[in-house]
């Protein structure tokens, strides 16, 4: 029960000396900074500002469902081709879109314009683009999906839908890391 837990936490805290408390905070910082390093390292390795994205809509079903995880690369040398799964940003929309490339036109000088469509949508994306926008360009692309893992993104979707749950989980994790002593 909650009461018992409180007592065990408190007695744990009492039994810690200064050195141990210091150590706990350091290991907490270690976890945070290595997570940050992994994320930034992935950004450098993939060239994408957001190398891992969660699928937020059903427009690519039955391939990708809400909560599936996609790994992106954004290699500018790798040409954009029909069938690629592109993650792109539209002016005036906060959330990037994950859709498939339907049509590509590439000039001699390397300028590319392309059109996308969701597998589960009946028509192409021109209705989703900014008013007057007919094509996407290289600069709109955050990355292209090269790897897939199902379900894991569900955690972030639940956390975004229920912010209180998010703070509860983060708080609990924080307490855990700070109080959990190496046995």
């Amino acid at each position, binding site marked *: 029960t909650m009461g018992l837990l409180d007592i065990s936490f408190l007695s744990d805290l009492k039994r810690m000396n200064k050195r141990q408390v210091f150590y706990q905070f350091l290991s907490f910082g270690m976890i945070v900074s290595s997570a940050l390093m992994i994320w930034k390292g992935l950004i450098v390795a993939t060239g994408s500002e957001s190398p891992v994205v969660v699928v937020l809509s059903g427009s690519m079903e039955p391939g990708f469902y809400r909560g599936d995880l996609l790994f992106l690369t954004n290699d500018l040398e790798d040409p954009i081709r029909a069938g690629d799964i592109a993650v792109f940003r539209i002016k005036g929309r906060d959330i990037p879109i994950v859709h498939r490339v339907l049509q590509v036109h590439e*000039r001699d000088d390397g300028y590319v*314009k392309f059109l996308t469509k969701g597998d589960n949508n009946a028509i192409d994306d021109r209705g989703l683009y900014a008013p007057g926008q007919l094509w996407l360009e290289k600069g709109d692309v955050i990355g292209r999906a090269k790897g*897939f893992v199902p379900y894991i993104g569900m955690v972030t979707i639940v956390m975004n839908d229920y912010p209180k749950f998010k703070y509860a989980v983060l708080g609990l994790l924080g307490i855990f890391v700070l109080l959990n002593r190496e046995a």
Partner: protein
Amino acid sequence: MNTFLSRLNSLFAMTMTVLAGLTFCCFLSTVHHTHHSIAKLDTPSVLVRQAPDYMIGHEINDLGHMTLNIDADLNHLFNWNVKQLFVYITAHYKTEKNAFNQVVLWDKIIRRGESARLQYSRVNPKYYFWDDGFGLRGNPNVTLALQYNVIPNSGRLLNIYAEGRHVVSMPENYIKGRA
């Protein structure tokens, strides 16, 4: 700190580690597959005309139309780490305006358990074959290819070309009206 909470924590961590390990093994077990297959494509009738694309204003462009014969057996591509195939036929060609053009004409989602034997005769394309200008009429080298995106249960997302391409020589004359 040998409490209920710490036991729950280690149980959860163990479950996640085992699941992640198994998922990774599933990916490793199929990573060597080449997903090779052979497709036969043909175009019994090919037309080209000029038309306004009302989706993008009143700009006039070349619009191609071809009926498709498709013959391919993709059943062998389904191993235990393939959830779905996204099969599509592209036309790629060169024009004066663009060094590379590629347009999807037809696609089909084949989920695990469904038949992946494609056998179509004189099927109409699903999408309009718009050029970005007037590069289709008389174009001698429009190449059709069957491609598929292999969507795994977990792993790499690959786009593969089937062996066997079909080169179309577009007609020298526009047809008039709506056909």
